[in-house]
């Protein structure tokens, strides 16, 4: 970014650049666990991306008896259809990540737009949008997700939209708070006075300031989205042709894996899901930690300590 306005605003512009350069360093120094998170997530995402090429067997290829025990050829055994577990885990990760990221994208889009608009325009727009957000926050997500998925039908597109539609509230609130504080800054008002359009201001001044927070929020939302997908699949509402990690767990559960002694069909996929959520939480949490004192957005009252309870609520915290 090389916009340099010859006015007091210029100071804050460079500040932004410094914020971002120092962010990574600060994040890592404050919470070294973030490194663990980043490494984990990278490995997992790579595995998911490369699944079609690195998977040892075919996704629908029956290579042995249902629930066959682990062997040198199949280190994690086979599932109830005689399919290699390692292959399933790789493809499952791919699908789970797809759903997680897609749902998050939907959620960030909605939440981001609403939060941005509410914070930037303020006044009536703000009140209306926040009222709507408040209602959505209060309605319990998991039951609503279940109901909508049940009525609408289990397809991967539906699941993505259903999850996304219920997760945006956290992003909206966080973004609104942040945009509000940024808006008060002098250089924004100067730019307005100079006649800059809303788009320009938002694009050039507001967004860069809120981007770090948005990223932190996004990462945390991914964790919740993946959890929600696992939950929906487990309750039988997942798309039967899209075999996510949640579906792998559900298949094993449906076919009495535990009673058959086939722990390999149930334990590994869960561990993988937990690792994804864990790494996202570590990264997101570290980012937030780093941004916290700088942006002084933590004293926002009662709801400031909310984490993202995975038992069924949207992410919202600073």
């Amino acid at each position, binding site marked *: 970014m090389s916009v340099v306005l010859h006015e007091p605003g210029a100071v804050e512009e460079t500040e932004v650049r410094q914020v971002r350069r120092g962010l990574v360093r600060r994040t890592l120094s404050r919470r070294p666990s973030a490194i663990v998170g980043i490494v984990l997530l990278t490995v997992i995402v790579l595995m998911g991306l490369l699944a079609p090429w690195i998977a040892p067997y075919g996704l629908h290829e029956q290579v042995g008896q249902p629930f066959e025990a682990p062997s040198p050829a199949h280190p994690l055994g086979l599932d109830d259809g005689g399919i290699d577990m390692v292959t399933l885990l790789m493809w499952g990760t791919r699908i789970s990540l797809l759903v997680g990221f897609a749902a998050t994208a939907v959620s960030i889009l909605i939440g981001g737009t609403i939060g941005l608009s509410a914070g930037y325009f303020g006044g009536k727009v703000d009140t209306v949008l926040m009222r709507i957000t*408040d209602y959505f926050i209060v*309605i319990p*997500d998991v039951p609503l997700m279940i109901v909508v998925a049940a009525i609408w039908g289990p397809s991967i597109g539906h699941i993505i939209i259903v999850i996304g539609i219920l997760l945006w509230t956290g992003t909206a609130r966080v973004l609104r708070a942040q945009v509000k504080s940024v808006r008060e800054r002098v250089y924004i008002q100067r730019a307005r006075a100079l006649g800059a359009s809303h788009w320009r201001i938002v694009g050039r001044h507001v967004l860069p300031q809120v981007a770090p927070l948005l990223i932190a929020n996004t990462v945390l939302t991914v964790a919740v989205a993946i959890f929600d997908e696992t939950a929906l699949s487990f309750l*039988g509402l997942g798309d039967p042709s899209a075999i996510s990690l949640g579906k792998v767990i559900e298949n094993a559960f449906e076919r009495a894996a535990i009673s058959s002694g086939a722990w390999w069909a149930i334990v590994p996929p*869960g561990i993988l899901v937990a690792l994804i959520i864990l790494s996202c939480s570590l990264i997101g949490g570290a980012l937030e930690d780093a941004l916290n004192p700088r942006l002084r957005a933590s004293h926002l*009252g*009662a709801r400031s300590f909310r984490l993202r309870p*995975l*038992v069924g609520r949207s992410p919202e915290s600073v």
Partner: protein
Amino acid sequence: MRGADYFIKRVVFAVVTVFVAITINFALFRLAPGSAVANLSRVPHATPETRAALKKEFGLDKSRGEQYVLYLKQLAHGNLGISFANQQPVSSNLRTALKNTIPMVLLGTLFAIIFGTFTGVISAWRRGTATEGMTLGTALTLYAMPTHWLGLMLIIVFAGTLPTGGMSDEFLINPSFTEHMQDLARHIFLPALTLGLVLFGEYTLIVRSAMLETLGEDYILTARAKGLKPWAIMRKHALRNALLPVTTLIALSLGYIVAGAILVETVFSWPGIGRAVYDAVLQRDYPMLQGAFLVLTVSVVFFNLVADLLYFKLDPRITE
């Protein structure tokens, strides 16, 4: 804003939210594909007359607007409709289900609150040490595990030692009070533990966060400058002030836990409201789904309200 004003404002908000939820509920279900009648009339030789009669009985022949008004009227009388599955009032089905869920959820929450607070405090106090790393690590790991998967893991571990399903051994004929209590205890242990462990992770993180914030405050610095011992600071200032937001948080999460119990109850065949939702989904028992969803929403709204009022009581500076 004065206390009374705030109180009224929050109550009005709660009422309006419930109303919004009711409307969403209605819209969702009446717009559902797979009409209610199709489900009802899957009887052999159902004549068009039978189907018409059923339609009339459930008011499905009226316009959407009329149905909505009818729905509201029925709600006002506490009539949540008739379950498709057993043709009994939804309200009585739900009442039984809630009765079963609450003890299990309370037990798990209690476990999580006690241990979570303890671990959260330790983790914040011992900032920068190995203890913090350990406690934080455990909390994060537990928090990251999918609830139902954790339940399944516990089943694998405890299979054979503890019952893995149901609320009690129904075949116990005329058990003594102690036998009955023992039986209930053996059955409630695993589901409550599952819920408790997941919440424990979350509460630890919350308490830790709150403690860290408080510990960073100016008045704590002052106390240290004055030479007060760390534990005294903890006791006198930090704990007390950190517990304010924690209390309201817990009140808030209580409302959501009932919803989250769906996963635990499905895994452990616990006959509570979570499983009622799951079964209703499986059987597409729309009246039950509608009723359960409404009950869950109202409970969440209620606990939100409680949390808001609690927080106001504890810290009147907050006016939103």
